[in-house]
């Protein structure tokens, strides 16, 4: 079925059309939107392209058949999370109150409360929050608005909120609170968590690290 010398064929399954063009090339040209005088006029090329177009449009119209689409993934998400909750990673126990009190809070529970505390500062979103050491040190990563006028002041505000929450809501004595700003987020980018009113635009500052003494 192929009468061209093998060196012109890159794929053993390729086929040479009666006009001499390789089928793979004709289809690749179609896919990339490449046109030339030959393809516009050659009946063989046009037929080959029409076949592929028909295939693609028909499989795509079947693909968008609603019966093939997930209607509601809620039960599926519950199913996944049920399995995940059998394999929780709560982290290490951290001392509440004085060290000899035998009262403890799991690292993840504390981290969750401290992230939420940081997010009480408008526009701040918290990511990584690691706790450990004696006394317990905090390493917190946050995203802050691009328009933050004073990043250092914002980092200080976050540290204060974290400290207050650790003391007043948990009863956890903290050592150092390190706040790392890992991204400056554009205010215009719609965020489902964004409840803050837009601030006046200022010159963007580079991300910098604010660290408590």
């Amino acid at each position, binding site marked *: 079925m192929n009468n061209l010398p093998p060196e012109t064929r890159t*794929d*053993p*399954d*390729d*086929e040479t059309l009666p006009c001499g063009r390789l*089928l*793979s090339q004709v289809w*690749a040209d*179609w*896919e*990339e*939107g490449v046109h030339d005088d030959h393809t516009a006029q050659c009946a063989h090329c046009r037929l080959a392209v029409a*076949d*592929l*177009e*028909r*295939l*693609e*449009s*028909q*499989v*795509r119209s*079947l*693909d968008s*058949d609603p019966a*093939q*689409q*997930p209607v509601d*993934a809620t039960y*599926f*998400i519950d*199913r*996944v*999370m049920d*399995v*995940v*909750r059998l*394999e*929780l*990673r*709560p*982290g290490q126990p951290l001392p509440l109150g004085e060290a000899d009190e035998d009262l403890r809070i799991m*690292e*993840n529970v504390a*981290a*969750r409360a401290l*992230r939420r505390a940081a997010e009480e500062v408008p526009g701040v*979103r*918290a*990511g*990584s*929050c*690691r706790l450990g050491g004696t006394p317990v040190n905090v390493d917190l*990563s946050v*995203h802050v608005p691009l328009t933050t006028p004073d990043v250092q002041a914002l980092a200080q505000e976050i540290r204060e909120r974290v400290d207050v929450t650790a003391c007043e809501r948990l009863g956890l004595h903290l050592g150092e609170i390190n706040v790392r700003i890992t*991204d400056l*987020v554009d205010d215009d*980018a719609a*965020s489902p*968590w964004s409840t803050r009113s837009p601030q006046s635009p200022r010159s963007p500052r580079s991300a910098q690290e604010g660290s408590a003494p």
Partner: protein
Amino acid sequence: MTGNPPSGEPPDVEGGRSDDTLMTERAAEGDEDAFAVLVRGHAPSLLRLATRLLGDRAEAEDAVQEAFVGAWRSLPEFQGRSSFGTWMYRIVTNRCLNILRARRPQAPLNELPDLPAPAHATAPDRITEGRAALHDVQEALSTLSPEQRICWTLRTLDGRSYAFIAKTVGISEQAVRARVFRARRQLTHSLGAWQ
């Protein structure tokens, strides 16, 4: 006539959204609520992907569930070299590839089987409407090798670029092109559009 398939990446995979990054960091530290947010955000598109790749919704759900549970386990080692979405897309695709490989004795890769003409071969439009057409397509897809099927589906139905597919499956772009070509050739044959 349809236009050419899109070559860019839909935003649900490559869009390294700020919130996704934060939720991935939290989940890596064991915050299951953050992981639930990620699952909620990515499950619909991954289920659609796996259903396309496997042609079976129940099998797709099992594959995506296993992919998520595996991701939860390996998140502490996930360094965030790619976005969570890209990572999951890769895990699900490769899981589906393995499922397809295990599904049946593998057909010879390069061989075009000499398929008998279907009964409705004389009908003017060989690909009929609705269920029958779906059945025909699924039958035709089952004649593809797992590798061909994966590459063709990602290209044609999921609209991915050859470069993206190559990175996802872990083969060269040229190999992806060859597989997509073979799949198209075989499908146009099988579905009778060729004559």
